[in-house]
């Protein structure tokens, strides 16, 4: 049930400003992250709930001996939290020194795009959009938001202050 991402070993510098993105669905919306941040994709396993944690932290799971926190990306982005089922998928992503699991509905595609296809995020009022959305792509008439992962984990200082 664990599948290593294809091309994970290949550098993303395809030349000519090309980059690879993994797109995934949350509800009816599509998002994508840079493929270089993704370590692996695995099926959903029940997480152990963590006390004193924000609602979007679903808990921790065992990833071959490492304790991996699971962030419900839907809840993190401000949508309804996911009702988890076996069909849900965890994207294991590297954020700085840490490894985090992102709970999404399904992984849909690997996109190879040039930088100029990525449009800047239009100025909207939503804080969430400002926090996470790094740009928008139009692919086959669908809108896909490019997500930055740096702020996915809860920020201890911000919360305590």
């Amino acid at each position: 049930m664990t599948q290593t991402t294809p091309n994970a070993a290949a550098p993303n510098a395809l030349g000519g400003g090309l980059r690879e993105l993994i797109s995934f669905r949350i509800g009816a919306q599509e998002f994508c992250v840079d493929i270089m941040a993704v370590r692996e994709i695995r099926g959903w396993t029940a997480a152990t709930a963590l006390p004193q944690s924000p609602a979007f932290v679903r808990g921790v799971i065992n990833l071959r001996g490492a304790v991996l926190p699971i962030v419900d990306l839907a809840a993190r982005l401000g949508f309804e939290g996911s009702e988890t089922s076996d069909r849900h998928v965890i994207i294991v992503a590297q954020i700085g020194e840490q490894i985090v699991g992102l709970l999404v509905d399904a992984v849909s595609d690997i996109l190879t795009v040039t930088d100029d296809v990525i449009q800047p995020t239009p100025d909207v009022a939503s804080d969430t959009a400002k926090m996470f959305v790094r740009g928008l792509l139009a692919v086959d008439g669908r809108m896909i938001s490019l997500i930055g992962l740096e702020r996915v984990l809860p920020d201890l200082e911000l919360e305590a202050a």
Partner: protein
Amino acid sequence: MDPLAAIRETFFQECEEQLAELESGLLAMEAGDADSETINAVFRAVHSIKGGAGAFSLEALVRFAHVFETSLDEMRSGRLASSDGVVKTLLRAADVLADHVRAAHDGSSIDEAHTAELAEELKALGPEGGDTSESEEDWGDFSFQPLSAAAPAAPATAGWRVRFKPRADLYAKANEAALLLRELGRLGETEVALDDSGLPDLADLDPEAAYLAWTVTLTGDADETAVREVFEFVDGDCELEVEPIVADGGSAGAPADLGEPEIPTTEPDGNLDIGVLLARVQAAAAPQAPPEVPSGAPAPAAAATLAEPSPQDGQGPSRKPEAGATIRVDLERVDRLIDLVGELVINQAMLSQRVMEAGFARASGVAMGLDELEQLTREIQDSVMAIRAQPVKSVFQRMPRLVREVAAMTGKPVRLVTEGEGTEVDKTVIERLADPLTHMIRNAIDHGLESPEKREAAGKPAEGVVRLTAAHRSGRIVIEVADDGGGINRERVKSIAAERGLIAADAALSDEEIDNLIFMPGFSTASTVSDISGRGVGMDVVKRSIQALGGRIAIASRPGKGSTFTMSLPLTLAVLDGMVVSVQGQTLVAPITAIVETLLPKAGDVHSLGGHARVIAIRDSYTPLIDVGMALGYRTTPLDATQGVALLIEGEGGARAALLVDAIQGQRQVVIKSLEANYRQVPGVAAATILGDGRVALILDIDTIVAVSRGADSLRAEKRLAATG
């Protein structure tokens, strides 16, 4: 680190080993079971330190080591008899030497007067007084002073004198001079003398060249062919000369054909101990190794010292001349291995659970194969843990000095008896054991033992005895500190506790409970703050540091007979004995060391104090009852106490509380996993672990849970302060 600093670091590491050797040798002499080899080992230790110190121009250290060495040489040559007084002086000199080494290492200051005093005492031992002048010249330019460690020369019988000088080619072909010399040793009694006169200064040293030569005096009835056969494989790669010894032996002078500078004839003789020799051979053979480090270290890698040779063969390297029996490995690698084996154990447990679930019969081949796998994984785990394990000797051997000092300060004659120094436990545990042990031994002498007059009046020998013992008991290490003093003065302890408001003045306490009062914070029986134990740390600190290691401490005392402190510690910090409990469908692990007892609350025992605050009556004392599910936010309405199980725990500072959980699943050893690595610290959770079903379970941080339930907001307030300040 620049190379010289690295070599220097290695030198200090070795000094520690030499000092340990020195101390254990002197202690053996004190106990009266010293033979000539012990004296040699002691001499060698001091000599090596002096030699290395010379290389680094540590003048003060060299000066003192020289005086020390001179006295030891007197003893070695039989001119000075080993009496009680002499050994005591030597022991104190060893302490001063250790001070000097430390001072040279970290730049701390030295008690000059004390040094001078002991130097005088040492000189007084020797017949001609000290002749320190010779040392400066000798060591200023750092030439080796080959030392004699051979047993007093036996009357020379017929044998062979073998001169052996390897060429660089010999090492290049991966031959080992040490192995050849050892092989030669099988033919009979050997006396090996090193000729290191060809050794250039460090700057001129070609790491791949060969500089050393040896003269081996072989006594025995081996014939020449046998001797030459030893060198068969290196024929042509060395200069070899085998000549028969005429009875009554010739001199050990260098034969002309070597053409090397001759061995300084001013030296007593050219013999070198085989252990030191082997080490030096290694140093010379290993391209990177600095031959200038006299006792011959392996490469001066800044690696953690694992399984140091000295604790295992405290008898000195000479008795076990197996060079290469230990290696130095980076601690990180070992820890990685331990981690991996932890995974293996979890994985194996998961696998067997799955197999059981799949409905295989216990007698099936699969299940039996799994059983064997389980055995193997456990064995692997034990062996891997053993890599980190070290004998407690390294901390025990610091204690004799402490005892001497405290004895001198209190004026109480004390004998320290240690047992079970070979008992092994995780390196980290050993490191963190030194402080509590130091404190307890100080206490045992200062508070435990009576004055000599009182002891004699009580019909006891004037000399008090403090016993320090270690042993393995059911997967833990048990360390005891016992004194044969007056035992705990319970009347006094009780009145002091009442005075300090620790107990009610009229509290009815059992003897055991009174004894345990000394572990309470703020309790100190010393009526005057003495130099020795009144340092503001009491037994509560000892208890806390033992608990932080996952251990427990207990006291047993008999009036007039003495007190015994017993510490029981886990063998490693990577695993933890846990009580697996369930709370609101979640599986949690509580550290067993904190749990005093478990009980099923009865409806009549639980009382509400308004809100969700509850207390439980346990043998007439009211203890706060904390619902773990509520404290961790797993549920919002408290559990009916009669539906759950209460764990009576004792947290930091001896505060007791009862934790209410839904059920107890069992007891097991769990591997500790960090939660912070990928997430962050979670209040109330100490760490995580992985259970047999592959799921993560959280390990409770009992102290925080108790603190949080005392004032739910205080924790957040503290955090806010920390964040802003």
